[in-house]
């Protein structure tokens, strides 16, 4: 049986989740807020707010480009967390997961990091380069502070799948294919049996990401898991509107963005 509520009670659904990813500050912090609002309107249940990083090892060229644009806006871990109350003010009510590489967290220090998450009202954290074996301390702290520490599991996690799944909080991020973000995706029999295995051990919803970019992908993932994570595809939609933003056609661009997302996850 899946846990009924999490993210400080803000997530009450345990299936059919839509979890979008955006990079804070891509192309500006103000627009990140607008995208979040449109994503929520299109049915997003949790927002992954990405912190741009100079050396994103798990990301392909699409998210690398987004990170570069955001870094040009001087976005940082501090500023990304401080964006959360601004999202709330604008009307974003869904839980926010801060998605950051580990090094910025080390520089901030665990104490300050959790203090900031609490002060600014972020309900979750995901650190893609902090595997289970290295995350014991921060998982403990997160639990103590009531912050969901999101774990990832991959097809080649193998004997570790059970251990990772059993300790998962919030939702479990299932990497559907080997590779960096933004790759192509096909649900092979192997992938399906992997997701099945993860679900057997997980107490929290199992969401699938990496390579989800069409409505067909979304339907397929929905059928076999508890939620769909979409990152690179959203970034590419944002990239497609960059020129419109520069030309001052913000409203039209945001409406097109909403329609695209709506079609993608309908």
């Amino acid at each position, binding site marked *: 049986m899946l846990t009924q509520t999490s993210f400080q009670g803000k997530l009450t659904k345990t299936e059919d989740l839509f979890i979008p990813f955006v990079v804070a500050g891509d192309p500006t912090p103000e627009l990140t807020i607008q995208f979040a609002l449109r994503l929520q309107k299109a049915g997003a249940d949790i927002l992954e707010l990405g912190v741009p*990083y100079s*050396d994103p090892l*798990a990301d392909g060229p699409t998210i690398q480009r987004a990170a570069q644009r955001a870094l040009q806006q001087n976005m940082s871990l501090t500023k990304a967390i401080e964006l959360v109350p601004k999202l709330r003010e604008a009307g974003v009510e869904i839980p926010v997961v801060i998605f950051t590489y*580990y090094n910025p967290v080390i*520089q901030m220090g665990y104490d300050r990091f959790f203090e900031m998450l609490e002060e600014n009202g972020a309900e979750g954290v995901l650190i893609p*380069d902090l595997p289970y074996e290295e995350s014991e301390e921060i998982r403990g702290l997160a639990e103590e502070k009531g912050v969901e520490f999101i774990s990832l*599991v991959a097809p080649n996690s193998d004997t570790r799948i059970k251990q990772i799944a059993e300790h998962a909080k919030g939702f479990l991020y299932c990497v559907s294919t080997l590779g960096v973000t933004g790759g192509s995706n096909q649900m092979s029999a192997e992938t399906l049996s992997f997701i099945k295995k993860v679900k057997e051990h997980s107490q929290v919803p199992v969401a699938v990401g990496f390579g989800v970019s069409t409505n067909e992908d979304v339907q397929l993932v929905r059928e076999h898991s508890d939620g769909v994570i979409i990152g690179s595809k959203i970034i590419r939609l944002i990239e497609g509107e960059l020129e419109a933003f520069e030309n001052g056609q913000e409203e039209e661009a945001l409406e097109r963005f909403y329609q695209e997302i709506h079609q993608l996850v309908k």
Partner: protein
Amino acid sequence: MQQVFPDIKGRFGDFGGKYVPETLMGPLQELEEALDEAMSDQAFLDQYHHVLKEYAGRPTSLSYADKLSKQLGGAKIYLKREDLNHTGAHKLNNAIGQGLLAKRMGKKKIIAETGAGQHGVASATVAAKFGLECKVFMGEEDIRRQELNVFRMKLLGAEVISVSSGNGTLKDATNEAIRYWVANCEDHFYLIGSVVGPHPYPRMVRDFQRVIGDESKKQFLEVESELPDRIYACVGGGSNAMGMFYPFLQDPCELIGVEAAGKGIDTPEHAATLTKGTPGVIHGSMTYLMQDVNGQITEPYSISAGLDYPGIGPEHAHLFQTKQVRYESITDKEALSALQLLTEQEGIIPAIETAHALAQAFKEAAEMTPEQTILINLSGRGDKDMATLMEHFQEEE
């Protein structure tokens, strides 16, 4: 009792570990198991040493730099001649070890990152020799600086992949190699060129490079009957230094690692990671690195492509913290003067990387006594640097 590093979690004290995306945890586990099995198999070790002797030309000589010692008027200077290793640098020792391991694991394709191109050449060489496919990731700036090595790699049958992200140097090439490995780990072996990266790489590369220190110790005792007072090696990622220092860690020799100070450690343009950096995570390992207050990794600078790296091997971070090794830094200018001096006095043109170790050693040698001895790891030869040197010395004229 002496503690053994790395420990079971791949830690050297506070440093090391595995800070990688989940998709790499499986391949790293597979690698660690295969490595442990290979290193405890005498047949594998015999094969490794056989290839080093019969193919690479080891042991490399220990040369006494008599003219130079006399001219500087201080300590007796000995050079461990890794420049005489096949392909012209110490890098091949590690590439042979990992190449044999890749074969043993049944992996037919290898990938490698390279800065100066020496590790790329070494990888391409073992790929040719052992019948493996080879892709080398190299930053576009380094491709420009090291044209000759790019051609060598291609001639050896490797595919050179140009990396344009970041500054187009070693850091970016390493990111891209890791990303490629994440997506292709099932049939690819990632042959890392230095004592960096997630566990078990720092240990593996050290163990395939310690042949430098093991040989040096034996050779030095044969000619001097006692160990050197000081031992110098240049440090980028730190594999030649780790290979040289490791067998001497329990001995009363003073060990000195020399980083690249670029245009000076008080300018933003340097690669002096331990001297100026702070602890954090880079390329899957907890170590010292160059970063800004927000934890974004900053771009290093050095005239030498092989030292132009914002991190350093985690074992060096540990040896720095515990003060078992002294770390100094040398500017581009000082390195080039030392390069010239060695060339003129001893007829050996060293790599610009190596010249950093030479410069620090020459400074100190002059203040030591003729009864004292020093050993410098001459990690590579300067043939690959001719274009850079021509550019530099022509500018001076």
